[in-house]
């Protein structure tokens, strides 16, 4: 099957006068049609930077290399006019904080119809009707009246629904949701994730869901990628990764997940994720890894397939000894 979105050997560096930050280091991702791909990682793991580089949303200080393709079209080589056509229309994005990601001085109708008119070339009335339709579809009652309200008249969860409606109204091939529920409380979080799943199956597009919450991935995604230090540590089907987490980092994330069933205490991963200021030569998780072996201090592990579609970057796996079955 051909992927819809391909990211190959993506590197993103931020260069300032004093130092260079290596945010993404050789990331490769394939997104297939009608799937929800979860990207998991702590803050600073490079997940958000990676997806922002897909649409060219990073500041000018970012140096990006690698291949990014939507279908056959190379996004990293586009001129700005074509890129603007892709933004929203082909790849739409929703962001972490719905309280601030809408312009406070324009009505929902203003903001939605402007985007719809731009991409779907509808007239004002058609755009307004489509906006209303989508507000209803994401579960906003009294959509006609709500359309003429300002963002501050909506609650956080409602605003995220508006953002989803705005994204979906363009029927994009890919929806990127960058921590869409992090700023919302848990019950709302569940509704929003349910909505994203529902939209994905109705519109039949593909979704990249970025989160730091493994629970979100387990309930929402088909495949998942675990990122650390701007690299993929582990990748595979959600069921495979959850039943046989092979990387010590993934295992650590699982252990720090609250669970009602196994009665164990939460086990946090010691230390903080470090931001790389030199090009990584060894496993970025090394200084926090409880299971490191001597090989880890010598060279960078490569991403190895341990089962079909289940890939892990760890020297322990190479030696065949780290399948911790839960």
């Amino acid at each position: 099957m051909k992927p819809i979105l391909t990211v190959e050997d993506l590197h993103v560096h931020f260069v300032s006068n004093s130092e260079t930050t290596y945010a993404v280091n050789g990331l490769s991702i394939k997104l297939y049609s009608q799937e929800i791909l979860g990207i998991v990682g702590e803050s600073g793991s490079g997940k958000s930077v990676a997806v922002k580089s897909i649409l060219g949303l990073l500041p000018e200080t970012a140096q990006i290399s690698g291949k990014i393709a939507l279908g056959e079209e190379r996004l990293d080589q586009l001129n700005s006019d074509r890129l603007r056509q892709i933004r929203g229309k082909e790849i739409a994005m929703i962001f972490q904080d719905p309280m601030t990601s809408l312009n406070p001085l324009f009505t929902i109708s203003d903001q939605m119809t402007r985007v719809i008119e731009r991409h779907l070339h509808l007239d004002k009335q058609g755009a307004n009707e489509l906006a209303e339709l989508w507000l209803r579809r994401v579960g906003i009652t009294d959509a006609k009246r709500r359309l003429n309200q300002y963002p501050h008249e909506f609650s956080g969860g409602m605003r995220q629904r508006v953002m989803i409606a705005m994204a979906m109204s363009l029927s994009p091939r890919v929806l990127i949701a960058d921590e869409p529920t992090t700023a919302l409380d848990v019950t709302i979080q569940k509704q929003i994730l349910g909505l994203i799943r529902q939209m994905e199956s109705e519109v039949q597009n593909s979704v990249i869901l970025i989160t730091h919450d493994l629970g979100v991935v387990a309930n929402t995604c088909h495949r998942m990628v675990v990122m650390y230090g701007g690299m993929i540590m582990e990748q595979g089907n959600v069921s495979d990764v959850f039943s046989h987490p092979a990387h010590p980092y993934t295992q650590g994330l699982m252990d720090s997940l609250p669970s009602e069933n196994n009665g164990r205490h939460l086990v946090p991963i010691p230390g903080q994720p470090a931001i790389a200021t030199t090009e990584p030569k060894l496993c970025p998780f090394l200084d926090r890894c409880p299971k490191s072996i001597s090989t880890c201090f010598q060279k960078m592990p490569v991403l190895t397939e341990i089962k079909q579609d289940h890939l892990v970057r760890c020297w322990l796996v190479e030696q065949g000894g780290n399948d911790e079955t839960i």
Partner: protein
Amino acid sequence: MVRLILKRILQAIPMLVAVSIISFMLIQIAPGDPVSAYITPESQPADIELMREKMGLNDSIITQYLRWSSSLLRGDWGYSYSNHRPVAEQIVERVPATLMLMGSALLVSIVSGAFLGVLSAIKPGGWIDRLVSLGSNIAISIPGFWLAMVLLYLFSLKLGWLPSIGMRSIGVNTTTDLLKHMIMPVIVLSFQDTAIISRYVRSRVMEELKEDYVLTEIAYGAKKSDIYFRSVLRNSLLPLITIVGMSLPRLLSGAFITESIFGWPGLGQLGINAVLRYDYSMIMATTLIASGLVILGSLLADILYGVIDPRIQELD
């Protein structure tokens, strides 16, 4: 919204009363005597005393103030000692000219200040930014009357492009003629505010560009010019309303000076001539009207705030 406006209007009334008391007291403190305008070297002390009694100058200050303010309310603003015409009539004649000058200057400084501010925020440190910054530094440093002299020398005296004085050429009644007369006074009155506003808008826009909604708009394919001049500018203009509201007194006193340099037949010229001629009722009337205009201006600023920012109406 209506409640907000009513509230602001009610708040403006005590302010006006306070201003009337202060301007009345200032006149009392000022050296000189209204009677001095009427006496000749031949006047006898008894005549002068009679005059004082007739003008009510021997009453207590409070009685004088109440008499003055109640006649103000009845629309009787007194007579000008210098030309013996009703003060109110002359003020009504003059206010439009001043409002026209101030309004145009305000418009010019907001539009050009906002435009230059956004332009320099697009690429901070770029050549446009440095040029605008240099220009505004110069503009803030040079005094208005000096610029007025230079402009007069250059464009009226040397090049002869622009008329040097007045509002209209005698016998000509066209808009072009009026605009020609306005160019220099408006430049002199607006250049400093343009500089201040452009600096302010620049820093506001740079702050505003960091907001999340800007990223949303980029991610949905908005053009850069749309983002800068539509979304971000509107958000940046909000606090600008306050700045402009606060700059009104300065603008008005600037108008007084500019009017007398360019012979613009407005309130400022009227006021300054009144001061030079000890024309008491005229001085008090112009002071009061000038303060009234400033209060009205900040009232409008408040209302405008509510119109532009939907969140303010919510608070009400």
